[in-house]
């Protein structure tokens, strides 16, 4: 199962994250997860939301450029080595991921959001190794 992630381009100046969150909030869009990346000059805000396509439209109306990419949400066992076990599987099979960030879902489970360079291949491996992946709806609970 893959889920859509919204990436928003922002200039590196005060109030940009606020502008993104306010625009989404006013449109009634629910934010499930968020991470920031920055180059010093500009930044990318990556978001998991309940309605990705609508979020892109809403942001465009506020003058923000955004795009949707597929990522995978993997529950991680809440124990020592939970994440290491997951990453071992990916590492052993040379499954390449570009970035990852932790999240939580409504049920309280720990989740890793992973962006693979080959999402389909990664999903096949995770399925074979009996790792669960969640849909946006499942994350919402």
């Amino acid at each position, binding site marked *: 199962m893959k889920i859509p*992630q919204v*990436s*928003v*381009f*922002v*200039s590196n100046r005060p109030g*940009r994250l606020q502008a993104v969150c306010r625009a989404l909030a006013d449109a009634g869009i629910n934010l499930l997860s968020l991470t920031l*990346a920055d*180059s010093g*000059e*500009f930044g*990318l805000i*990556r978001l998991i939301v309940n309605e990705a396509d609508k979020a*892109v439209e809403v942001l*465009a*109306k506020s*003058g*923000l*450029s*955004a*795009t949707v*990419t597929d990522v995978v949400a993997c529950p991680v066992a809440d124990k020592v080595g939970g994440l290491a076990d997951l990453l071992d599987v990916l590492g052993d099979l040379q499954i390449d991921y*570009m970035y990852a960030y932790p999240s939580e879902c409504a049920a309280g489970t720990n989740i890793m959001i992973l*962006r693979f360079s080959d999402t389909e291949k990664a999903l096949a491996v995770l399925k074979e190794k009996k790792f669960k992946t969640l849909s946006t709806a499942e994350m919402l609970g």
Partner: protein
Amino acid sequence: MRSTAWNDEENKILPEMALDFMPEEKLRELQLQRLRATVKLAYEKVPLFHERMVEKGVTPDDIKTLKDIVKIPFSMKKDLRDTYPYGLFAVDMSEVVRLHASSGTTGKPIVVGYTKEDMDVWAQVVKRGLLACGFRSTDIVQNFYGYGLFTGGLGIHGGFEALGATVVPISGGNTERQVMLMKDFGVTAVGGTPSYFVRIIDVAEKMGVDISKLNVKRGIFGAEPWSDGMRDYIEEKTGIKAYDIYGLSEIVGPGVGCECECRDGIHIFEDHFYPEIVDPETLEPLPDGEEGELVISTLSKRAMPILRYRTRDITAIEKTKCKCGRTIRRIRRIGRRSDDMIIMRGVNVFPSQIETALLRAEKALPHYQIVLDTKNNMDTLEVKVEVSRDMVSDSMSDMEQLSKKFKHSIEQILGISVIVTLCEPDSLPRSEGKAKRVIDNRKKI
């Protein structure tokens, strides 16, 4: 007579276009006759031209052939400023029916005047340009050139009216309403500055309106230099055909020349405006085919005859005939004006080169602005580029790559190092008329 009344299925050559196809010999004869009359008028009625000709020891009788035009002194923008407001007028104010003026941001504006006959000539040349680009009386035209003192809006308007088209005189600004009317009125053609049309395209996209699905088929654009890349961008985005109309207020406004359907240069309406190319340094005349500064003399203007006006536009007169068969000569499209030139660490830079570089890098035309500054006693050139939706990636390295790609492409064309800054959409200022592409914050030494 409305052009649609002409009983010709193909509708390609219309009676109103006949002057564009005059036998060359007759055209030269007409030009000489009119040049002699204009020189006489200027000599007798305009002190500035009189004094300059006396200084050079030239009288109107010395103009015996078209080649003799080189005996006449040049004129330039400064002359219009120095004689502000009516010093170059050759007729009594009672004959002047219209005044136009520049915005005059750098001091006194320049003022131009028209008699009734001048107004007719102006409308007719614009009409001939429109016809050459396929505009017809059946068109519903949205004119978003600025109306008012600027010659663009009312000049093009006069041509549309003479053509018999339905004009929507919306002027510039209120971009969302522009999109709404374009759709609701079933607009078939548009006219204005290309940079403002790019703005309309942006806003239409945001409103969820696809211009290529509307009735708009063609557009006439001018008042600022625009690259071939910008033309491709406009055409790909909207499915319209974009044509270039050339002009400058000092001569008449838009309509000094215009493209035809071949879009292989700008035909000058030579029966009213006589073109020459000179070396901008030595002011020596250059033969057809060679690049230099365009110099124009009016051949029929009465209120304000202008002799050998230095346009600051860099172009060449084409040597070959156009495929359309018009005998009036063509100049190459204006890619650069010597006025727009930025001198950066001794290198000549034109905004249009940066436009070309951006298009080459991304095959899209992002909104951009050039900022010149002085940092640590070094002049810097920064290009701010707005990141549109299709340029965003979730990957930081892709975004950095994009910035590098722009930088590399610009540096390759300019040959100097530049700074590229990616900006959010709509963060750069836009004017509703001409694009303000260059901000110069450099310390003047």
